[in-house]
């Protein structure tokens, strides 16, 4: 049973950014620490323009930050930008958890009612 969480889809949001397997791969690599673009090219086995394209999408949603150091551009993960996804997926779990908390209340009453009526089940 679905938790009701309508969400407007836009091309430049974190949800779209992580929908692409290559971009998740980039995030995986960056989860290990800051990396220059060359490392990412090597890790993904893609041509640099492709990697740059994915990095641009990730930067647009703030999922990665970039800084220049000398002639190198270093990329790092910005977890805060991805937190909405995490929170949002969690709301599905949470809605069940809240449902069950309510069910606990109902069950307590049923137990009492059964005890009062001398039920032997």
């Amino acid at each position: 049973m679905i938790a009701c969480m309508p969400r407007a889809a836009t091309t430049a949001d974190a949800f779209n950014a992580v929908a692409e397997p290559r971009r998740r791969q980039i995030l995986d690599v960056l989860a290990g620490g800051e990396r220059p673009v060359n490392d990412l090219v090597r890790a993904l086995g893609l041509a640099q323009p492709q990697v740059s394209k994915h990095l641009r999408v990730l930067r647009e949603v703030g999922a990665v930050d970039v800084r220049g150091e000398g002639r190198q551009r270093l990329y790092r993960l910005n977890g805060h930008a991805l937190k909405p996804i995490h929170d949002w997926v969690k709301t599905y779990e949470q809605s069940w958890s809240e449902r069950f908390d309510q069910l606990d209340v109902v069950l307590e009453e049923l137990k009492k009612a059964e005890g009062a009526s001398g039920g032997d089940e």
Partner: protein
Amino acid sequence: MTLPTDEQILITREFDAPKHLVYKAWTTPELVKRWWHANRGEMTVAEIDLRVGGRWRYVMVADGGFKVAFHGEYREIVPNERLVSTEVYEAMPDAEALDTLMLADEDARTLMTLLVQHSSKEHRDAHIESGMEDGLQEALDLLEQVASSLR
């Protein structure tokens, strides 16, 4: 909540009540109305025709006026033990799932297992409304990692 296969969602929970009461709370309309809303709104409809081939329908008006409706058909009924039904979110009528509720005794407690089986990974992911094309479990693992690094 776990995602055992690409088409499934598995939810488990323990209740401090015997299983016939959990079953009763799950299959009695006026009781369902008291918990199924998950504090997200008010249930205006809870219809349960508890027999094989019988139908159920739940409607909730969420806070803010957004209406969500679900219906399905009972496929298998073993009172106090097992309840299998189809489930359709009326806004996505093509994505029918099969829900299996299982109740097991744990002394005076009940271990509940709810397995939601979708016909495809796409439907399951749409059910969770993840908006992700694929790799939901991997994405969840990654996000879990990311979230814990934020604490």
